């Protein structure tokens, strides 16, 4: 059950972020991206059927949104406006590829976008996760990215970085431990 006051606070916060982003504040725009990135990725992946294409679409949509922010009516919420932009860009991309498609079940802002409550928790955890990732020593960050995101094996990373595989796995262990600590509230 959503608390109306919290929802209102979230909306007001978002309106303030849009205003700051419109005036050229990169931190405010980054905060908007952090809020809507998970929902945007789900929507884009559902539309295009491929994670890499979805990432490109989401990046394109956010940058276009940044360009068009001055056109957004200050009384309109950012989320639905942004998801319409994302959807239109995705459909154009599909048309450009000349892929035969039936109108996909496009997630509207209400269905794909996490509810404000979930979004708040999500954003909070994500912020903590991002901080933990930024605080990792550069070598550990590189190793965890190569292993967990790019799917490299320990031996390959070791060869790439001139370390022993055991040393790579130790760094990986340390990095994962720090990141999981940031996720602890989510896992409770």
């Amino acid at each position, binding site marked *: 059950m959503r608390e109306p006051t919290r929802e209102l606070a979230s909306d007001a916060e978002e309106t303030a972020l849009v205003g700051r982003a419109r005036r050229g504040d990169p931190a405010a725009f980054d905060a908007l991206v952090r809020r809507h990135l998970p929902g945007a990725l789900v929507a884009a992946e559902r539309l295009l059927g491929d994670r890499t294409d979805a990432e490109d679409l989401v990046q394109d949509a956010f940058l276009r949104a940044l360009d068009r922010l001055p056109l957004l009516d200050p009384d309109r919420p950012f989320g639905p406006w942004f998801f319409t932009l994302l959807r239109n860009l995705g459909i154009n991309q599909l048309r450009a590829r000349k892929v035969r498609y039936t109108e996909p079940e496009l997630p509207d802002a209400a269905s794909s976008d996490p509810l404000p409550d979930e979004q708040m928790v999500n954003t909070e955890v*994500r912020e903590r996760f991002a901080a933990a*990732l930024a605080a990792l020593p550069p070598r550990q960050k590189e190793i965890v990215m190569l292993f967990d995101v790019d799917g490299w094996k320990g031996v390959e990373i070791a060869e790439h970085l001139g370390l022993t595989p055991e040393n790579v796995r130790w760094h990986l*262990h340390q990095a994962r431990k720090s990141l999981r600590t940031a996720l602890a509230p989510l896992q409770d």
Partner: protein
Amino acid sequence: MHDDEFDATNPAFRSDPAPDAMLRTLLRDERLRERIAVAARRRLLRAVPTPWYGWVARYGRAIVPIGVAAALIAAVILNRSVRNDADAMAQGAASSSGVSDLKRAVAGGSRAAVTDAVVGPDSTEFLIAMVVR
């Protein structure tokens, strides 16, 4: 696997750990967010109007060599056109003096004077002048 100190003999580090789907998703999202943040910052920087001193700071190093090169090119072009003008004036003066000599000779000069006016005076100086030039 709780050791914070690296121990190469620890059996836990002999093989790769199992993949963690949640970490993977969050790390991928975070990488994309960083990518978007970098591109957005670049765009926002470009959108800020550059004051005149910004342009000077940005192009100051190139302005001096470009100015020197432009001045050199202008000097060469100017010099060449001045020289061409002088040549043209000299040529014009020479041809007008030849016509007036011919007019004078035809009007009452001797046959030798007319010949001199048409084919040049009976001397080898013009040959020497051609060779020297």
